[in-house]
C-alpha cells in the first residue's frame, strides 16, 4: 500500500511537469506559426484597426509568457475557456462580429465541446482496441508459440502487409467497398453504433501489426528462457507453463508497448480516422480547430491528450510492477 501511494504521488508529480511542458510547447508553437486567428474570428473584410483592438482585448498581442501564465491560471481554476470560432449554437466558421466587436460569451465553452465529442471518441477507440485484440492476440500467440513455422510466417506477412497500408487510403477504400458499393454498413458521420464499425476497423488495421509482432516476439522469447524448460522437466505440462507463466511474463513488455506506443498511435489514428469519416469525436473537433486556428480548443485537447498518455503510462507501469514484483518504476 505504501508503495502504491509513493508510486502514484511521484508519478503524478512527474506527469504534471510533462503536461505543463507539452502545454507550453503547443501554446508557443500556435503563436509563432503563420495564421493570425483574429482574422478568422472577425472576418476578412474587417478594418485593420478593429482587428488590432480586438486582438489586444483578447490578449493575443501580449508576450507569449504572459499569455501562457494567464492560460495556466485559468486552466488551474477548471476553466478551459471559450472557442474563438464555434458559436454557442454550434456554428464553426469564423468571420463574424457584432457591432460592439468580438463577444467571447457568444462562443461555445471548450469544456462542453470536449464533453460532447469525447464519448464518441471513447466508443471508437474502445471498439478499435477490441478489433485489434481480436486480430492480434490469436495471430501473435500462434506465431510466438510456433516460432519459425508457418503461423510465425503468417503473423509476419500479415503484420508487414497491414503496416504498409496508410490509414487514409484504407479508410477511403473501406467506405467505398463496405458502404458505397455494397451498402453493408453506414460510414459517414454518426447516427448510431453501426457508424463506429468501419472507422474502428481502420484503427485496428493501424494498431494490429505492432501488437502481432510484439506478442509473437515476447511469447517466443519466453519459450526460449531456461525457466520454461525447467518447468517442463519438473513435470508441468506445456499448456500449464504457457497459461500460467509464459503469458504472464510476456505481458509485461506488452503492457509497456501498449502504454508507450499503442495509445499514442491510437490518439493519432483517431484524428485522421475521424476526419475521413466525418465522425463527430475529439479528433474531428481538433482537426477543424487546427484549420481554423481555434487556439483554446487545440490547447485543451493537447493537455487532455498528454494527460491521458501520462495517466495510462502510470497505470501500465503500476500494473507491470503488480505482475512482476521485481520491477520498480
Amino acid at each position, binding site marked *: 500500500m505504501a508503495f502504491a501511494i509513493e508510486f502514484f504521488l511521484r508519478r503524478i508529480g512527474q506527469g504534471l511537469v510533462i503536461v505543463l511542458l507539452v502545454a507550453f510547447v503547443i501554446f508557443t508553437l500556435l503563436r509563432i506559426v503563420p495564421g493570425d486567428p483574429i482574422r478568422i474570428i472577425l472576418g476578412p473584410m474587417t478594418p485593420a484597426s478593429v482587428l488590432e483592438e480586438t486582438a489586444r482585448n483578447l490578449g493575443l498581442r501580449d508576450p507569449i509568457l504572459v499569455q501562457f501564465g494567464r492560460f495556466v491560471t485559468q486552466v488551474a481554476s477548471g476553466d478551459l475557456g471559450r472557442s474563438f470560432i464555434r458559436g454557442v449554437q*454550434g456554428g464553426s466558421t469564423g468571420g463574424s462580429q457584432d457591432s460592439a466587436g468580438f463577444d467571447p460569451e457568444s462562443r461555445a465553452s471548450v469544456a462542453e465541446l470536449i464533453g460532447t465529442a469525447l*464519448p464518441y471518441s471513447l466508443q471508437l477507440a474502445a471498439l478499435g482496441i477490441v478489433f485489434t485484440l481480436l486480430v492480434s492476440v490469436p495471430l501473435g500467440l500462434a506465431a510466438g508459440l510456433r516460432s519459425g513455422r508457418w503461423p510465425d510466417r503468417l503473423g509476419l506477412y500479415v503484420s508487414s502487409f497491414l503496416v504498409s497500408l496508410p490509414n487514409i487510403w484504407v479508410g477511403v477504400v473501406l467506405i467505398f467497398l463496405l458502404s458505397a458499393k455494397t451498402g453493408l454498413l453506414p460510414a459517414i458521420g454518426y447516427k448510431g453504433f453501426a457508424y463506429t464499425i468501419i472507422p474502428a476497423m481502420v484503427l485496428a488495421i493501424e494498431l494490429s501489426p505492432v501488437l502481432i509482432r510484439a506478442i509473437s516476439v515476447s511469447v517466443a522469447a519466453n519459450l526460449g528462457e531456461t525457466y520454461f524448460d525447467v518447468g517442463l522437466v519438473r513435470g508441468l505440462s506445456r499448456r500449464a507453463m504457457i497459461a500460467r507463466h509464459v503469458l504472464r511474463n510476456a505481458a509485461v513488455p506488452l503492457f509497456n508497448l501498449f502504454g508507450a506506443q499503442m495509445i499514442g498511435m491510437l490518439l493519432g489514428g483517431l484524428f485522421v480516422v475521424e476526419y475521413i469519416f466525418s465522425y463527430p469525436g475529439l479528433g474531428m473537433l481538433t482537426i477543424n480547430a487546427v484549420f481554423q486556428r481555434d487556439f483554446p480548443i487545440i490547447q485543451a485537447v493537447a493537455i487532455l491528450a498528454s494527460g491521458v498518455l501520462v495517466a495510462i503510462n502510470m497505470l501500465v507501469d503500476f500494473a507491470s510492477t503488480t505482475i512482476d514484483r521485481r520491477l520498480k518504476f
Partner: protein
Amino acid sequence: MKTTRRMFLAGATALGAGSLIIGPTGKLGSAFAQDGKTLSFAAAGTVTSSWDPSSHTVAPQITAEGFLFGHLTKCPMTAENPGEILPDLAVEWKVIDPFTLEYKLRQGVTFHDGKEFKAEDVKATYEYASQPSRPASAWYPGQVEVEIVDDYTVRLKTEKFGYPALNFWYVSAFLPILSAKDVANPDVLKQRPNGTGAFRYEATKGDQIIFKAFDKFHEGKPQIETVLWNYVPDANTRVLGLLNGQYHLTERLEPEQYASLSKEANITTQRGLSSENKYLHFRCNKPPFDDVRVRLAAVHAIDREQVLAVVGDAGQASNCHISPVKFGYTDVASYPKFDPELSQKLLAEAGFPKGQGLPEIEYITSVGFYPKTREYGELITAMLQEQGFPVKLTTLEPAAWEEQLYRRADGQGPGHIVDVGWITGSPEPDLVLRPNYLSKFALINGVSDPEIDASLDKERNAASTDERLKILQTETLPLIAAKVPSVSLFSSVFLRAMSKNLQGVYFYPNGPIDLSKATLA
C-alpha cells in the same frame, strides 16, 4: 488487497465494455435517410456564430441564408442575361429620380415567426445593414434612407449620402430582408434566423444544421420537409457519402471527382458558371510591382490557356476582371495575352532586362480551398521563371493563407503575388471592382491610381443602366486590364453532384441553392 492477473484482466475488460456503454448510445442500422422528405446536404463550409446577415462576409453562410431569407428581387445571374431581375418580395420597381428607387411589395407574406411582412421591415433592414459599422457593409454601395410610402411601398433614397440610388438596382437581390422586430433587438437577430424563405431554422446539432419547410412560404410549402446541412470539410468524404446514399447533394467537387461521378448511374452532376473569378493580385504599393510595366511583363509571361487546362472542368476562359454572370461583363479586346517577347521588352524598359535586378518575388497561394491552386501555381511559377522573374511559390493551408491575403494596418501585405477568388451574390460589378481597385480600399493589391478611381466613380454615378453598361465595357474594364493591379486568370465553375432522384433544384452562381420547388423521389 492483492491484485491478480485474472482480476486485472477482468477489470480491463470491464473498462473496455464500459467505454462502449458510456459512448453515445445508438442502434445498428438506420444508416441511410431515404424517406423522400429529408434532404441531406454535404456542405463544404458552415455558418458563423451569428445569424445576423449583416455580421459576416462568409460564403457558406450566404448559401445557408438562401434557404431562410427572402430578398426584394431575385437575380438568376445567367451568362446569357446577367442583368435579369425577377420579383421576390417586391413585385414592381422603378427609378423615381437619380437618387430614388421605388419598390411595390408583395402582400400576404409572413416571416417564420408569424409576423406579417411590410414596408417597415424593408426600412429596418436597409438602414441597419448599410451602416458603415456593420461588418458586411462593404457589400453595399453606401448608406441609404428608406421612406415608407404605405405598408406595401418603399422608396430607397441615397441623395443625402451622395451617390445614385441605381447602385441598389442589383444589390436588392442580395440583401436578406429581416424583420423590423428583430433589427430592434440585435441579440435575437444573432441567435436565430427569421426570414420569409422557403425553409425555417429548426436547430443546430454539432456540425449539423436542421431546416424545416415553411408552411406559409409565399410560393407554397416546399415538398422537401427537412434539409439537413452537414458540414463535411473533406471533399473525398463528401463524395463517398453521396455514393453510399447518406447524402443527396454535395458541392465544391474537384475536377477528377466530378469526372468520376459523372459516370455513376445514380448520380447527377451539375456544372455551373459562378460569379467568382480567380485572380493573381500584384502588391502594387511596393517594388517591383509598383511599376505597371513589370506587372504587364508578368501577365504577358503567363499562358492562361495552359492554366485553364490544369483547372479543367472547374474553370472557364474569360478576358475580364468580372465574371460573365455580372452586369457589365465584356470580353475585353485589349486584355493582356501570353506574349513572351513583349514580356521581355517590358522588363527591359522597366530596367530589369531578362529579369536581372529583380528582387525575389513571393507568390502566395492556398491549398485545400480552391481547386488546383497548387498545380497551376507551380505552372505559373515556372512560366514566370522562364522569363527571368525570380519567383518563390509559398503554398499555405486556408487559415494561414487568409491571414496573409489582405493588406495590414500599415498598408503593406506579405509577398508580391497573391492567388485569390472573389465571389459575390449579385450581378452588381462594384461588389468586385470597388473593394479591389478603388484606391480607398484596394484590399489586396494596394493599387493607388487616380485614373482607375475616376473611372470607377464615373460608372457608379451614371444616370442610367445603359449608360453605366457602356462606361463599364468601354472605359472601366479596359482601363483595369491595361493597368493590371491584378490579372483575372479565369472564371470559376462550381462542380456539384446529387442523387438522381433529386429534381427541380436551382443553383445560384454565388452558392445559394433553391430547393423550394425541388422533389426527392
